[in-house]
């Protein structure tokens, strides 16, 4: 795939992600606002969303500059970093699932709050993405051997 096509695809996916984040936040503020949202909840909702959008925009800008000066979007090092980050995210998520299993086993015994199934799915996905992007960022700075 040509680098310009790949960059365009990344921009399209980025735009879809930003739209998804904006739609989710709008939904929370419009439909859930009736129940009253605490300032802390607003903070924890808005700050990560803004950070994600900012990082995405800066990342795509840097890639665009590289492609314009004739450099590839991806190379062997960036692919290896993504593969390693994916591997680490998978392992971490498996252990996280084991932890969740233990949590549910002792819900009644220790009176832990029950987590609804739809929330569990969101929590697992959020954890997996957090580990993946976190490790991607760390490995992009530290390097990979």
């Amino acid at each position, binding site marked *: 795939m040509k680098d310009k096509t790949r960059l365009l695809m990344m921009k399209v996916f980025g735009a879809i992600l930003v739209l998804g984040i904006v739609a989710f936040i709008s939904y929370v503020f419009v439909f859930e606002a009736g129940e009253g949202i605490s300032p802390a909840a607003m903070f924890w909702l808005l700050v990560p969303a803004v950070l994600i959008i900012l990082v995405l925009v800066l990342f795509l800008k840097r890639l665009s500059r590289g492609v314009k000066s004739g450099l*590839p979007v991806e*190379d062997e090092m960036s692919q290896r970093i993504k593969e390693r980050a994916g591997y680490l995210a998978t392992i971490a998520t498996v252990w996280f699932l084991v932890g969740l299993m233990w949590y549910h086993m002792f819900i009644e015994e220790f009176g832990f709050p029950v987590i609804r199934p739809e929330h569990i799915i969101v929590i697992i996905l959020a954890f997996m993405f957090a580990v993946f992007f976190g490790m991607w960022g760390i490995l*992009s700075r*530290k390097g990979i051997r």
Partner: protein
Amino acid sequence: MKTRIKELRAKYDMTQEDLARKVGVRRETILFLEKGKYNPSLRLAHDIAKALKAKIEEIFTFDDEKE
């Protein structure tokens, strides 16, 4: 692993971006190679050696080779 990429780049008045463009990788890859934070594939090592007009073993040295 240590590399002489920076030294040889300077010899041919090449920036990291110039070398990256020549061998078809991102500038960050050249930067990480120079800092010893990434071990290149054989193909990439060969391409860099060709671009810098040197042998692979003259550019890349491993710590145990010094002993």
